C-alpha cells in the first residue's frame, strides 16, 4: 500500500474519493433541506439560501446532490463488489483449473461480453418488480463481471505456470489453498484495479439508468437529479445549476477513481512510475539547449547529468590524501563473513 500512496495522483484521487465517501455518510445530515421538499422558490439560481439553486418544484439542488452521493457510491461500490467477486471466482477458477471447466466458464463470460451491456441491464432491470438501488447494483454487478474475469483468467493462467505455484503443489498444498493463499494475493493489484474500473463503469451505468428513468426515482442519486433536470428541460430553461453540478460530480468521482487506478497501474507495472526529469527546472534552464535534452530520462538515450547537477560531497578532500603508513598494512585476520561458508 505504501508505494501506492507515494504517488501524487493516487493521493489526490483517494482524497477526493474520501471526501465523497464522507458526504455519502453524512450527506443526509448536513443537507440544508430535505431533497424532496418542495418550496415556493421555483427554479431559483444559486443563492446563499440555496447554494446550487432550486428545481422546478422548488427543491434544493445542493441538498439533492449531498443526499444523492450515497446512492451513487452504494450502487457503484456494491455492484463492483459483486462483479469483482464473480470475476475472481470465475476468472481464477477457470484459469487455474483449465480444461473443460475453463472452456465452459470462459464461454459464459464471452456471452456476457457479446451481449450489449446497457440494453441487457435495462431489460433485466425491467424484469424485476422493483428497481431500488440494491437491485440495480445487483443487476449491474451480475452483468459486469465478464471483462474482469477475462483479465483475471489470463493473469491466473500465467501465474499458474509460475514456479512458486508448482512449488506449493510440490510440498503438498491442497488446491484450494494454492488458489487462495498462493495465487490470489499476487492478483491483488489486478483485482483492485479491475475493481476500480468496475466502480467507474457501475457509476456511469447507474447514472445512465437513472437518467433514462429505468430505476427507482424515489431514491436520490446524481442520475435522478439529472433525470428530473432533463425531464424539466433544465438546460432549455437556462437552469444550468440544476444540470451541471451533478454531471461535474460524476466526472470528478470518475476522475478520482481513474487517478487511483493510475497508482495501481504503476504499482503493477513499475515501468509506468519512472520519473522523467533528472534535474530541477531551474538547473535545466541554465543549461545550453543541446545539453538540456540530454537531461531527460528517455529510452534509448540515457540521461546525462550535467556536472553542476551532482553535488560533490563537502568532505571531499581538495588536496592529495596523506599517504597510508605501515601500520595500516597489518592484516586483520579472517573477517566474520569468511566463516559463514566453508
Amino acid at each position, binding site marked *: 500500500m505504501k508505494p501506492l500512496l507515494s504517488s501524487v495522483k493516487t493521493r489526490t484521487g483517494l482524497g477526493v474519493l474520501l471526501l465523497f465517501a464522507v458526504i455519502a455518510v453524512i450527506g443526509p445530515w448536513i443537507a440544508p433541506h430535505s431533497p424532496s421538499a418542495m418550496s415556493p422558490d421555483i427554479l431559483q439560481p444559486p443563492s446563499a439560501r440555496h447554494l446550487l439553486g432550486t428545481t422546478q418544484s422548488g427543491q434544493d439542488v445542493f441538498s439533492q446532490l449531498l443526499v444523492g452521493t450515497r446512492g451513487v457510491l452504494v450502487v457503484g461500490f456494491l455492484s463492483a463488489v459483486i462483479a469483482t467477486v464473480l470475476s475472481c471466482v470465475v476468472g481464477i477458477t477457470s484459469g487455474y483449473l483449465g480444461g473443460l471447466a475453463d472452456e465452459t466458464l470462459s464461454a459464459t463470460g464471452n456471452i456476457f461480453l457479446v451481449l450489449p451491456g446497457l440494453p441487457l441491464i435495462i431489460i433485466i432491470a425491467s424484469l424485476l418488480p422493483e428497481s431500488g438501488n440494491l437491485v440495480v447494483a445487483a443487476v449491474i454487478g451480475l452483468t459486469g463481471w465478464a471483462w474482469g474475469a477475462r483479465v483475471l483468467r489470463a493473469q491466473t493462467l500465467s501465474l499458474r505456470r509460475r514456479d512458486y505455484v508448482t512449488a506449493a503443489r510440490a510440498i503438498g498444498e491442497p488446491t484450494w489453498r494454492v488458489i487462495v493463499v498462493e495465487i490470489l494475493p499476487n492478483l491483488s493489484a489486478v483485482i483492485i484495479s479491475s475493481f476500480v474500473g468496475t466502480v467507474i463503469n457501475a457509476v456511469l451505468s447507474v447514472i445512465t439508468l437513472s437518467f433514462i428513468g429505468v430505476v427507482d*426515482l424515489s431514491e436520490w442519486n446524481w442520475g435522478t437529479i439529472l433525470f428530473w433536470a*432533463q425531464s424539466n428541460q433544465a438546460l432549455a*430553461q437556462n437552469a444550468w445549476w440544476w444540470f451541471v453540478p451533478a454531471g461535474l460530480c460524476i466526472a470528478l468521482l470518475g476522475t478520482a477513481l481513474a487517478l487511483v487506478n493510475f497508482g495501481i497501474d504503476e504499482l503493477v507495472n513499475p515501468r509506468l512510475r519512472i520519473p522523467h526529469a533528472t534535474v530541477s527546472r531551474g538547473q535545466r534552464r541554465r543549461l545550453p539547449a543541446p545539453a538540456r535534452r540530454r537531461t531527460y530520462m528517455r529510452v534509448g538515450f540515457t540521461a546525462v547529468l550535467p556536472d553542476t547537477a551532482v553535488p560533490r560531497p563537502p568532505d571531499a578532500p581538495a588536496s592529495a590524501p596523506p599517504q597510508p603508513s605501515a601500520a595500516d598494512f597489518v592484516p586483520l585476520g579472517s573477517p566474520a563473513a569468511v566463516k559463514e561458508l566453508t
Partner: protein
Amino acid sequence: TSSPNAGRGTAKGPGGGVLTIGMPSGPQSENHNPFLNTSAGAALGYRHMMYEPLAMVNPIRPAEKPKPWLAQKWEWSADYKTLSLTARPGVTWSDGKPFTAEDIAFSFDLVKRHPSLNGSAVPYDSVKVQGDSVVLGFETPQFVNEANILSLFQVPKHIWQEIEDPETWTNPKPVATGPYTLDRFTPQGVTLKQREGYWKEAPEVGELRYTSYNDNTAATTALANGTLQWSFVSVPNIDKVYTSKDPAHHKAWFPSGLGIHGLWINTERGPFKDRALRRAVNLVVDRQLIHQQGQYGLAPAVESPTGIMLPAGEPFLAPQYKNARLKVDVPAARRILKEAGYSLRDGALHDPGGERVEITLTDPAGWADYLADLDIIKAGMEKLGIKAAVRTQTVEAWTEAFNNGEFDGTMHWTNGGSTPYDMYKNILDQEQLQAIGKPAAGGNQGRFTSAAAGRAITAYAAATGDDARAEALGTLQKIMVEEVPMIPTHANALGAEYSTKQWTGWPDEADPYAPPQPTQANSLDVVLHLRAAS
C-alpha cells in the same frame, strides 16, 4: 439537376407555404394504415390529413353536434339501434374515383369483419346500402358510441377490397378523400402535399412536413427556435422555454376534453376502504399546485367535484353540482376524519381502530409528471397526519399491480369520450369488478362496489331519451362526489403549441372550434382554418 432534392427546403406547394408539424414519437417505420394505432400515421397524426371521418366530433365541446363531414347527415332510430348515414355527393378519392355510400358500407363492414381494426369496439351488427345512404343496425342502443361511429375513417372500397389481410397491410400508396396526399416518407418524418380536387375549399397550406423527434427536449428545442410550428409536447415552464422566445407568435393552448387523470384509490383494501378517509383526502389534494408544478401549468385542474372537466362538460353537470367547486379545505377534512372516529396523535393520524394511517403511492419510474403529482398529493396527506410514501415501480409491475388491485393509490388516467359516461364507466363499471389479485383490465381497478352505480351505467347506455340519460348521469355524479371512488386531479389535456408567425386561424379560447392537438382527428379541421399570416 436530376436530384429529387434539388430546390427542396424552399419549395412552395401549389397552395402556398409549408407547415411544420412534429411529435416526440421516435423514429418511424412506413405504415399508412389508418386503422392501426401503431402506424406512423397515428404517431404523427398525418393519417387525419388523408383519411376523413363521416363527421368531425369536437371533443372539447362534446355537447355540440358533430360537424357533418363525409356524411351529409345521419339519423338514429328512436331506440338508437339503427343509424342511417347519407354520403356526401361530389367527393372524390385522390385517385379520381368518386366516393359513394358503397365505400361507407365497405369501411364499416371492414371493421366489423376484423375486430382487430375495431379500435373502439363498437358492436356492429348489420350494414346495408340504401341508395346514397348506409344503414347500420345494432342489437343494443348505441347512443354512447355515436362519436366512435361517426369518427370511423373512410377507406376506398376499390382498393381495400383487394387486400386480404388489412391488419398487416401498411398501405404504401394511400388513397383517401382528404386534401393532402403522401409525398414522401422517411423514418424521421413525412411530407404531405396538397392534392387537386378536394371536395371542400382548398386549404392555404400547400405542404405539411411532419417530423418525429426522439424526445420532448428535441421537440421543444425545435419549437423554441421556430423550426417547428405545431406540436404537442409537455414543456415545463412553457413561458420561459417557449412562449417568451417569440411572445407575439408562440402560443400554447391546452383545452380539455372529458378524459381526466387522478389518484385511483383502492376501495377494497387498505385505509381507502373507508369512505371518510377518501373524502378527507379529496379535500386536501392541491389541484392548482398539480396543475402548476406537476403539469407545468398546461393540463387544467379538475374543478368540479364530479370529475367532469369544465367547460367541456358544463352541459352535463347535474343541477346540484352546477356551482360546486373543489378547493383545498384542511379543516373540513379534519372534521370529517374526527367525525368518523379518526384521531390525531403527535401529528400522526390514527384510524378508529387505533392503527396509524399509512399509505403508499406508486407510479412507474420515469413518469416525471405523475411522480411530481404524487409528491404534491403526499404533501397534502401529510397535512392530515397520514404517513404517505411515494414508491416507483417498473411500468410492467405497475400495470400489473394496477389491474390486479394491488395498490393503495396511484396516478392513472380515465377514458375520455363524448359524454362523461365513458369516464364514469371506466371508474365505476360493475361488470369489470374483480377480486383483488384478478386482473380487471377494462376498468374499475379501484374495486369500487356499488349496485347503484352499476344500474346507472346500464341505464345511461340503454336510455333512449335525454331525461333518462340526465337522471342516470346525475346518479353517477352523486356517487362520485359522495363516495369518492377516485380522486380526480387534472384534465387529459388536448393541447398544443403552435406558432402564428406564418399561419393564423388556430383554435383558441375565443374560438374553440377544435382541440389544437396535431394527432387528433380535428387536426384536419385546424389546417383547413389556417391562413397565411400577412
